């Protein structure tokens, strides 16, 4: 009986769909990740392939989020070379420019979430270092726990900010289309 094909973890695929715009670029990236996963699973085994898959997907999501912050989403800027430009250009151009006007509010929201994380992080560290229990014997253990918590909170805030920034335009666009349909 043939062995079942290895299956990549599901959450990185969901992450890709949340972070990247609906574009041929996203389909290609998901396909590339799957192809490399199958190759790695054959060469290194499924557990190692899953680790690599998650690592690559996370790295791609982080780079996409940083690029989106710099006003360069990963939507295709040009149509494919083998499709007549007149046929494909409007769709790609619309997708590339889609939601740019909406980005201002989303960037503000993302920066707000990130600022909250940084401020809370700073307050927690300050309270541990200069608080009333700063000189207590158990200070180091408490400090470590608070430090880990504060860093985790900041990372969570950064993640939320990235998701808001990357997936937000699509959500807003879908909501606008839904409203237009309802109005008709």
């Amino acid at each position: 009986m043939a062995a079942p094909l290895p299956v990549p973890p599901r959450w990185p695929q969901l992450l890709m769909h949340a972070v990247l715009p609906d574009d041929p670029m996203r389909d290609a990236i998901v396909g590339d990740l799957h192809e490399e996963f199958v190759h790695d699973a054959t060469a290194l085994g499924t557990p190692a392939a899953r680790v690599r898959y998650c690592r690559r997907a996370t790295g791609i999501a982080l780079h996409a989020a940083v690029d989106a912050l710099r006003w360069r989403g990963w939507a295709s800027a040009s149509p494919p070379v083998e499709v007549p430009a007149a046929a494909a250009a409007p769709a790609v151009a619309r997708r590339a420019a889609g939601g740019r006007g909406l980005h201002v509010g989303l960037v503000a929201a993302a920066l707000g979430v990130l600022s909250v994380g940084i401020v809370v992080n700073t307050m927690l560290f300050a309270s541990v270092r200069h608080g009333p229990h700063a000189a207590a014997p158990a200070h180091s253990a408490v400090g470590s726990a608070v430090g880990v918590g504060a860093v985790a909170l900041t990372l969570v805030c950064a993640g939320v900010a990235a998701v808001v920034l990357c997936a937000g335009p699509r959500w807003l666009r879908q909501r606008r289309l839904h409203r237009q349909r309802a109005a008709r």
Partner: protein
Amino acid sequence: MSHKGFLGEFEQTVLLSILQLADRAYAPGIAQHLETSINRTVSRGALYSCLNQLERKGLVRWRLDEPAAERSGHARRFYRVTASGVRALRTAREGQLILWRGLEGILGPAQ
């Protein structure tokens, strides 16, 4: 990555790799080519970001292949360097050659 129209080092590397791979240049292939040819491990995020930027600059174009089963039904996206990309590489090479000239005494001869 680069300013005022100049190519960054990584952009040059990726463009050269695409040229080397001819019509089979897609992201995993480029990453593998860089690993095997110059022993450079490339982060996938950095690679896609660079390809996206090169496309926006008009230095590469892309085409889609047929969807494949081993890619869960997704098509490969093959890149090729445009005429502007070739010109940018030539300009970068000329600048580099000028800067490398006369430094053999310090850096040794090219291998």
